[in-house]
């Protein structure tokens, strides 16, 4: 199979994530879309590592996974605090900060 298909797949996943962040309302789902984008980048890294014939890209994908895990910790902490004080995880409800 042509290896460039993986690049297309990664671009499609990234686009789904990027659009999801914009159109979805639930903070958790928005956050999942961000994770999808990070994983799309990972797929691109691994594919390019294969194409370029070195392992730098594979190493990069490990770093991304660790960073994504840290991001989950911080992100869920913020989203849960938000939910506890408003009983809602909708990003539309968070609209106090306008002038």
């Amino acid at each position, binding site marked *: 199979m042509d290896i460039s298909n993986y690049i297309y797949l990664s671009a499609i996943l990234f686009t789904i994530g*990027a659009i999801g962040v914009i159109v979805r309302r639930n903070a958790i789902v928005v956050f999942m879309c*961000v994770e999808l*984008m990070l994983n799309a980048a990972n797929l691109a890294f691994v594919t390019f590592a294969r194409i370029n014939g070195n392992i730098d890209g594979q190493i990069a994908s490990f770093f*991304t996974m660790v960073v994504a895990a840290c991001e989950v910790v911080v992100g869920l902490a913020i989203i849960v605090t938000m939910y506890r004080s408003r009983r809602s995880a909708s990003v539309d409800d968070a609209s*106090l900060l306008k002038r």
Partner: protein
Amino acid sequence: MFTSPHLNYGLLAPILIILAGALVGVGVEAFVRKTLRATVQLWVALATVLVAVVDLFIVRNQRSTTIAIDSVTFDGATVFMQGTILVLAFFALLLISDRGSFVAQASAIPGSQDEVSADLEGKSQTEVFPLTLFAISGMMLFPAATDLITLFVALEILSLPLYLMAGLSRRRRLLSQEAALKYFLLGAYSSAFFLFGGAFLYGYSGSLSLNGIAAAVAASAGNDIFLLLGIIFLMVGLLFKIGAAPFHSWTPDVYQGAPTPITGFMAACTKVAAVGAMARIFYVALSADLVQWRPIITVISIITMLLGAIAAMTTRDVKRTLAFSSIAHAGFLLIGIVALNQSGLKATLFYLVAYGFATLGAFSVVTLVRDSAGEVTDMNRWVGLGKKSPLIAGAFCLFLLSFGGIPLTSGFIAKFSIFTAAYEGGNTTIVVFGVLTSAIALFFYLRVIVLLFFTEPKSDAVSVSIPSPKVSFVLAASAIVTIVLGVYPSILLNTAQSFATFLR
């Protein structure tokens, strides 16, 4: 056969010292009695930053591109930017430690019994200090990093603590939590773009290091679509961090919602780190491909300057106003990147120092203007402040004049040198727009000054609380730096000149 990498600990030390201090801070959180904790944390943090500054000063003349294999470079620009970040962070820590900006217990629901009792018990969220140190370490690594993985990791190290700290305000907690949520979601979104761009640059060049990318770009060895995609996505991530249009929309909200000392810290230090990293990427890795990115950055810079200057006029909240002013400054800083010459880098370094101190000073004034419910950021209630407390209002005006670029303040020299550099680089258009927007922005700054000094105070006017020694010190230092750099700019310009190099 596995060979262990060679690390040059001597030159990594400033970053490692900060990380060690942050870990000590975590230990203090666990083992020191509640009543002593805030004091101990402050001293640990201040001492850490001081030791790091001294260490950086000792090794300032050493140069190496291989201090952590080839992932971190220690060159003039690194030294200057790390030094700037450390000094600004020192003052920001003093602001952070000042009474009552932070929530007693972040996990307590706003308005609940838990919150009241946590308040009565005199709890305080002293985790802010280690979090600040972690953020500083990321900020120091970001402009020094020379490969895409290190850049991404540094970006996250500096961002993650800031997301949390944005949500820790004592007053108006819902606003603060909202700011944290917005900052986090948009920040994570933009770092995903940064990473995806990095993947494509890697796909283009087959190398993660900036030098490898530079070599591939110079030889144009690869698929140009990958290069263009890589540059654009990487740019999105970086422009978000420096708060440039059209990726600026988080800035006013986060600056307004976050606790004021944190706003000052991130406005000053994040800007230094992000502009430094952006300059390194474009000067070192992509300078051979400037036909593609220079027009884009030029347009973005012009839009950012105009938007910041015009939007600042439409808002009545002091913190939002300062946020829009910081957006406008992001536009001016981009001029230094477009210039792409040594004097452009020198001007950028000088600009960062001038802007950083004026910003810290301005936000420390905001922490002082209060009523019974805490800080007041509504501009209508600042009317006539100059008549009641001329000194504080005068300092605020000085910082605004510096933002506006009036002669005899640091802002003037900063703008002048950055315009000169762009003109030398042959970018006349951007200079014309820069001067025009400076004029627009100046109108706005002068309007605030009229409001403060030449308008009669209203009945619900606010009072300026007596500044504590720490805040007075920050205010005085920022004011002195702003004036001295305006009157004798050569002190810092010469230093910036000798440090303004990127080792390749």
